[in-house]
């Protein structure tokens, strides 16, 4: 069997996916970043410093919560990995602390980032404030409208937020704009990419920075389950960073890995091979090769691509990718809130929605044990929830 979720090949490939499809102008920056990451990741001093910030700043390890009420109702054992409890309200801080430390180590003075729901933008603005770096966050105009709270948070943290008016005015276009800025500012600027997407080394590096989710959960779950590992590990997938970090902790076990995509942004489930934002992966596109505009209630999953490693895991059958609809997501947010007292992000609610639907069916038989990564909290979504649940 193919060994997966290790280092990609030297040209940044996960099977047939990945690579480094960027303009020549950016190649030296990508090579320098790869070298810096390799060095730092092998340096115990860097690991120690990152670990310190994770514990004393980001609030790690995050809790593992047994969702006892829902478990009883669904006839399964549901354990929640609580990334919603991490500082800034989502798993994004894990990656950003790593990249900000790396940027500082490389002598960069400015971070740029793309953001959809604003969670990665907030995390980037946070790390920039902490480490005395400047930050510019690119955000689609449409997302700025529906995530006003996070825009204000970024401003409060001292970041500049640039509205992106091209294309679908969402995450895809924000990513284009961040890459354009990176080309012109590569001397002093680090592109703090928020997902396991983009050119090599990003998919690998971001997965490594998010691996902490899966590694913590592995240990925590072992204390809860007599079997040691759960039957199923489930997480939502947009670009796929929280899922990649979670899966990395369980890929060498018998656990089934399930990634839940938005029905309107399901690149693994409905995409075709293509090149977007610097890597070859599965991409929603028309027959002419024009990239489609995703449609999801969750701005963070409103993305027509997916990280190349997910395309590989899906192709190999090591992970399964499923979709849920916006309506199922709204029901899931309410049910988790009412039963467990946890208001999760619309993105994370995709994973919950799948569990609600699958429990008791052949997909997730009664008695199954499930680890679900709750990637973020729902505070940012109140405006949309007030609309959607009215």
């Amino acid at each position, binding site marked *: 069997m193919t060994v997966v979720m290790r280092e990609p090949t030297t040209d940044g490939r996960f099977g047939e996916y990945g690579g480094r499809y960027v303009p020549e102008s950016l190649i030296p920056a990508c090579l320098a970043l790869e070298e810096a990451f390799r060095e730092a990741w092998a340096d115990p001093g860097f690991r120690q410093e990152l670990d310190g910030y994770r514990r004393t700043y980001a609030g790690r390890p995050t809790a593992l919560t047994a969702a006892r009420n829902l478990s009883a109702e669904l006839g399964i054992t549901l354990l929640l990995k609580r990334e919603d409890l991490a500082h800034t309200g989502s798993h994004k801080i894990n990656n950003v602390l790593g990249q900000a430390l790396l940027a500082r180590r490389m002598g960069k003075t400015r971070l740029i980032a793309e953001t959809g729901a604003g969670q990665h933008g907030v995390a980037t603005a946070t790390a920039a404030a902490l480490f005395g770096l400047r930050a510019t966050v690119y955000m689609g105009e449409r997302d700025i409208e529906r995530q006003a709270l996070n825009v204000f948070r970024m401003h409060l943290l001292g970041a500049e937020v640039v509205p992106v008016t091209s294309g679908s005015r969402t995450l895809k276009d924000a990513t284009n704009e961040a890459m354009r800025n990176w080309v012109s500012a590569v001397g002093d600027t680090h592109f703090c990419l928020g997902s396991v997407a983009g050119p090599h080394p990003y998919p690998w590096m971001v997965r490594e920075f998010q691996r902490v989710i899966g590694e913590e959960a592995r240990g925590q779950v072992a204390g809860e389950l007599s079997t040691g590992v759960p039957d199923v590990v489930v997480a939502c997938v947009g670009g796929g960073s929280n899922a990649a970090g979670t899966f990395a902790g369980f890929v060498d076990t018998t656990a089934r890995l399930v990634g839940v995509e938005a029905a309107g942004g399901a690149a693994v489930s409905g995409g075709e091979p293509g090149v977007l934002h610097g890597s070859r992966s599965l991409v929603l596109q028309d027959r002419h090769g*024009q990239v489609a505009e995703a449609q999801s209630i969750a701005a963070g999953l409103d993305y027509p691509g997916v990280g190349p490693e997910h395309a590989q895991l899906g192709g190999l059958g090591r992970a399964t990718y499923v979709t849920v609809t916006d309506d199922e997501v709204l029901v899931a947010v309410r049910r988790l809130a009412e039963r467990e007292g946890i208001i999760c992000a619309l993105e994370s609610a995709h994973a919950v929605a799948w569990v609600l639907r699958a429990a008791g069916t052949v997909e997730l038989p009664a008695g199954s044990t499930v680890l679900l990564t709750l990637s973020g909290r729902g505070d940012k979504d109140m405006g949309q929830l007030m609309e959607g649940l009215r």
Partner: protein
Amino acid sequence: MTTTLSAALPLTGRPLLVPYVTGGITADWTELLLACQDGGADAIEVGLPFSDPMLDGPTIQEASDRALARGATVESILADLAATPLRVPVVVMTYANIVLRIGLPALAAAGVSGLIVPDLPLEESAATEAAAAAAGIDLVLLAAPSTPDDRLREICARSRGFVYAISVMGTTGERARLADSAATLAARLKAVTDLPVLIGFGVSTPAQAVEAGRAGDGAVIASVLMRRVLDGATANELAADVAAYRTALDLGVSPGTPHAEISGHRG
């Protein structure tokens, strides 16, 4: 008719002029190609619009969006191209996703002579280089101001037709002056290649084109022309614009200048 780039772009000391047109930007966009030819183009770069043009500034983005919004597809653009009788060769510029989808034979069938793919660096271009060679298309590689010397040599060794010198660290788009990095990069390239070195990205006036012709072997003129078309310029007006670049390039560098001598040495 397919003309090889090397035949169409001789290094005689006369600076080369390659205007750019976004395919499908207007209903009668092939008239714009004829206008470029009439204006004195040595070759014409045709952009196949892509939904996510990572290396393009606002003008080419707008031109691409307009073409796609009009309903232009890669297929329709190639069909238009095949039906347009041009004496000068066409170099297609588009992104990797489009190239991987349509394949090189479709470009060759439309009479395309060359191809530029800005998000296909050396690491990713081998398969496309082979497919282009098999289809009789010159794959033109790009060099950037940030490219180190060893890569520059490899780019020159593997590029076909000409080498595209990206004038500045940035995206395409009109600029007030030609960046100093343009001349520096062109000189570094000319030290290691006999291929024509064309400077592009932001060459926005005939005077800047003359500079590019002195530093390298000519210029690609893109955003400034598409801005004119987006603002409603007719084919005749575009032909006049292109002719102004042609005249400036021809007058700006005359035989006997150091540039021509350098060209002569290269044989």
